[in-house]
């Protein structure tokens, strides 16, 4: 059942190799247990997109959510949507912001980190996990997609 003839087949079978790499990464980096992802399938989409979705027996237009990106060098970068959904299960590399920092972060600004996290991707959190940041020399680089930058009135 191809939705479009030009489309590459992505969803006909799970990508076991990417599954292993992604689950190992989130467990090691954030302490998010692999058991949370039982029954979910991992697919490799175009331009290194790592997709988590349901098991499928046909080729839809798309499925599930892009949870990460695989760079050419094999590094994994988690997406905002992944962090927002599973960040609450993270036990390490979580940067907790103050309210004023959260306001800045939601506007798309970088913020200072005051924590003993390892450099690299972090869960940026204020009440809820807000998204992904990149910790470098004590600064959390903002990784929120531009479309998500927003002035929040109630927080």
């Amino acid at each position: 059942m191809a939705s479009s003839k030009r489309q590459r087949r992505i969803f006909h079978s799970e990508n076991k190799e990417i599954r292993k790499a992604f689950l190992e990464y989130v467990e090691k980096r954030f302490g998010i247990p692999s058991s949370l992802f039982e029954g979910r399938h991992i697919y490799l989409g175009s331009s290194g997109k790592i997709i988590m979705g349901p098991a499928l027996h046909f080729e839809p237009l798309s499925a599930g959510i892009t949870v990460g990106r695989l760079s050419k060098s094999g590094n994994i970068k988690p997406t905002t949507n992944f962090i927002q959904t599973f960040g609450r299960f993270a036990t390490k590399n979580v940067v907790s912001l103050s309210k004023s920092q959260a306001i800045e972060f939601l506007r798309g600004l970088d913020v200072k980190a005051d924590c003993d996290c390892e450099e690299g991707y972090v869960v940026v959190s204020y009440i809820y996990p807000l998204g992904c940041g990149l910790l470098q020399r004590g600064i959390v680089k903002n990784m929120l997609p531009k479309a998500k930058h927003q002035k929040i009135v109630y927080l």
Partner: protein
Amino acid sequence: MIPADFVERYKDITDVELLCACLEQPLPKSFRINTLKAERAMVLERFKEYGISLKAVPWYEDAFIADKHDIGLTLEHFVGAIYVQELVSMLPPVLVADCLQEWSKVLDGCAAPGSKTTQLAALMRNKGLIVANDIDYVRIKALKSNIERCGVFNTAITNYDLRRFPNMRFDVVLLDAPCSAEGTARKNEEVFYLWSVKKILNASRLQKQLILRAFDLLKPGGVLLYSTCTLAPEENEEVVDFLLSKRNAYLEEVEIKGWRYDRALEEWQGKRFSEEVSKAVRIWPHQNDSGGFFIARIRK
């Protein structure tokens, strides 16, 4: 501006003065808690801190009416912990909730922008499979973005004309049909500018084709939920009646706890419908201060 013909059409089947007075009032702002991303208690606690008062809804514990209109500017909206949605639009998933199992295969036949898809996913706790289909590629982009924002992992998107949807079988099918949308006039003034009986008849013709395909995509014993956000009997009772005349389908009585509604009409403009049809319900905006809606639950 409510068209005179509109008033004329409905004056014998409801209190049309109450209806018109209601249609001129703005719609209360409602939302549901997206339990895929947040705990209900936590979200309620936060709204208390914001000083936004919430009113619960008798038939769905995740639905609330807010006394402020800018709930889209909350942190909860940003993180996808709430989904702003009209109350009547939350009814179809709630009314099939008893059929949703961890292994269920569900088709949302006209799914974009995904209010009901994402709600179904929450009711299914992200298990099983939802196929969210829509004919309109532009609207599918909004569907995709809502799926991502809500943390929905059990859904695949397809882009078919439902009338030509490939042969698959589902436990549950939602057909939230394209319609003349009279019931949304409170949030969309355009409805009455574009309103005409011709539009209603065209919608009805398409809905009859859609409901046959939706029914044929059910497994034996499966449930089809047919809904529209319009008041026109041609798009509601007449469509369900048409299905009953063409297929071996049964209606199941729809009940909505704590709300007022009418049973579906037995006849319209001299045409009598099958008795079964009255198991469906029509919700007039003035009955619960909501949008207008029609719902039938059909078993194969």
